[in-house]
């Protein structure tokens, strides 16, 4: 019977589930468990080590002077300048490569996922893309040199004194970088297409929209985050590649223009990027590991900065995977 005076609630003794102990496990299980632990922690340490090392080394070697001065050929560290032109080079190559790779990769993924007819052609295209993905970048660079050193492609790069096309320029390097990045971007975008719910397509078809209209007006806008993460991955691939730069950009100390048209003369000319700068300073003729550390640190910062920028431009990474469009 309930009385007017409410009885004090009896204090409940709360019991929480105890953590499972491994004591009762068979020995093999316990060893395997331990191994998993060790591997996980080990990898974390490696990642942490790289970042920490780059940070410490980079910060201590980095001076504002390095960022604004162009490199110059000198045996003395104090006079060999900074890496302002490699920074520009990195940005230019990345921009060209991304501009080449992303539209092609998105179109490729859209065709493979939304059309894909005839089947045999789709299969062929898929394995073609996979093949490109498997080609080492140095081989791709050689292929680029063979192709773009032909007189036909002379407009993309400069030529030597005897008239032979060099096949080395920002344009050529950017184009081949684009080819390098296509498989990665296409795979990410493809994944995005596959994650779009079927009902989105059906809704559009049920309104009498063609497959093309549906893809262009509904699917691609919904795919923005997937396209963005593909772009980020592709950029990362492009920024980090050294082989293509070394062979197709010349790895020259300065950005050497070709011709006289502004902008185009730089794009047709040779130059260097941070990766080739790091390479030549850490192992090559530059022989200035301190500057290599600083440049590598800047490279890392640029990668992180571009990632953040693209993610922001696309309106957030998890726009679709969680509740698409719930954001305001």
């Amino acid at each position, binding site marked *: 019977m309930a009385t007017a005076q409410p009885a004090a609630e009896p204090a409940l003794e709360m019991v929480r589930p105890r953590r499972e102990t491994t004591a009762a496990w068979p020995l093999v299980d316990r060893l395997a468990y331990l191994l998993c632990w060790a591997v996980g922690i080990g990898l974390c340490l490696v990642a942490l080590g790289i970042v920490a090392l780059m940070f410490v080394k980079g910060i201590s070697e980095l001076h504002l002077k390095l960022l604004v001065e162009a490199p110059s050929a000198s045996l003395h560290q104090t006079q060999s300048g900074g890496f302002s032109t490699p920074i520009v080079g990195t940005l230019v190559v990345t921009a060209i490569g991304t501009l080449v790779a992303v539209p092609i990769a998105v179109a490729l993924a859209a065709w493979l996922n939304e059309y894909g007819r005839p089947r045999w052609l789709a299969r062929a295209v898929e394995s073609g893309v996979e093949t490109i993905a498997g080609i080492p970048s140095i081989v791709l660079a050689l292929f680029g040199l063979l192709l773009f050193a032909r007189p036909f492609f002379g407009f993309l790069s400069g030529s030597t004194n005897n008239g032979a096309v060099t096949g080395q320029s920002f344009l050529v390097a950017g184009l081949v970088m684009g080819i390098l990045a296509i498989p990665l971007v296409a795979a990410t975008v493809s994944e995005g297409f596959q994650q779009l719910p079927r009902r989105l397509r059906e*809704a559009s*078809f*049920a*309104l*009498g929209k063609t497959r093309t209209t549906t893809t262009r007006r509904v699917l691609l*806008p919904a795919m923005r985050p997937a396209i963005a993460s593909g772009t980020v991955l592709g950029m990362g691939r492009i920024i980090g590649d050294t082989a293509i730069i070394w062979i197709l950009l010349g790895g020259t100390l300065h950005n050497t223009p070709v011709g006289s048209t502004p902008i185009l003369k730089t794009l047709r000319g040779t130059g260097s990027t941070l990766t080739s700068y790091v390479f030549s300073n850490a192992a090559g003729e530059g022989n200035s590991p301190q500057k290599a550390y600083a440049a590598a640190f800047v490279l890392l910062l640029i990668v992180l900065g571009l990632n953040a920028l693209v993610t922001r431009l696309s309106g957030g990474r998890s726009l679709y995977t969680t509740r*698409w*469009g719930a954001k305001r």
Partner: protein
Amino acid sequence: MTAPPVRRIALDRHPRVVSPFEQVDGAGNGQGTAAGATAVASPTARRRAARPTTAAAERMRLESVSLAYGERWVVRDVSLPVRQGEVLALIGASGSGKTTLLRSLNRLTEITAGAGRAGRITLDGDEIHEIEVNALRRRVTMVFQQPNPFPMSIFENVAYALREAPIGSGSRPPRRRRLRRSQLEPAVREALRRAGLHEEVGDDLDRPAMALSGGQQQRLCIARALAADPEVLLLDEPCSALDPISTAVIEELIVGLRESVAVVIVTHNLQQAQRVADHVAFMHLGELVEYGTAEQVFDEPRRQRTRDYIGGAFG
């Protein structure tokens, strides 16, 4: 033909359905009419709000329609009229083929690989397979089980249906230029009004559609489907993902819409069919078992199978 898995009901294995195009005379059909049920006022009539009967005009006609996926026939020999001015409900257990039948009306079945068909479906007298498919889907639009607005603004969701009219097959009207917002806005607002959503969202059409509640999203989908001013509106269990209040709002909307558009609704909810439908088609294992007015099907079903289903014996 394989035997149906439901073995309990063997009374009428091969039902002969009275042709829906003939005038159905409920009293004359002795078989299976529950004695005494005709005497009292129909329970179905009591269940729903009083509504004016409207003049029904036939828009679509299904003649001996059979539908297959791969080698399997999932709908067999269905004949039905779809009339403007009334709501037709398709009821039946899961796997009875009612959704497939519904999707065949705007040829949405065709996006599934291996879809096949037999029989005739006409829209205003024209065989629908001879109408250009996108033109057909603008005349026979559909709302799905799950609210599926596009991840865009409310305005864009509705305007999408109005934009970029596809090139027609025969007469080839000139391709329309992309319309400006001011040109689209009256039509968008009108569609939202017809779907009963305008009062709630009219002041800010630029809100993202995904920020709406489930019921609002579904009404937005109805608005989108109405925007192209279709002749037939197909609804595939439109309330199954919604709460009872949203369901009531949408049911009221459906009843109101039947005057301007022929409505076909698939539902698992028998009370819902009772509340909204003028005619009911009961399907079982791909066959049309019974077709009649809502009162007749629910209150005096002619077939044992219908009686069992409505009484909750299976499904």
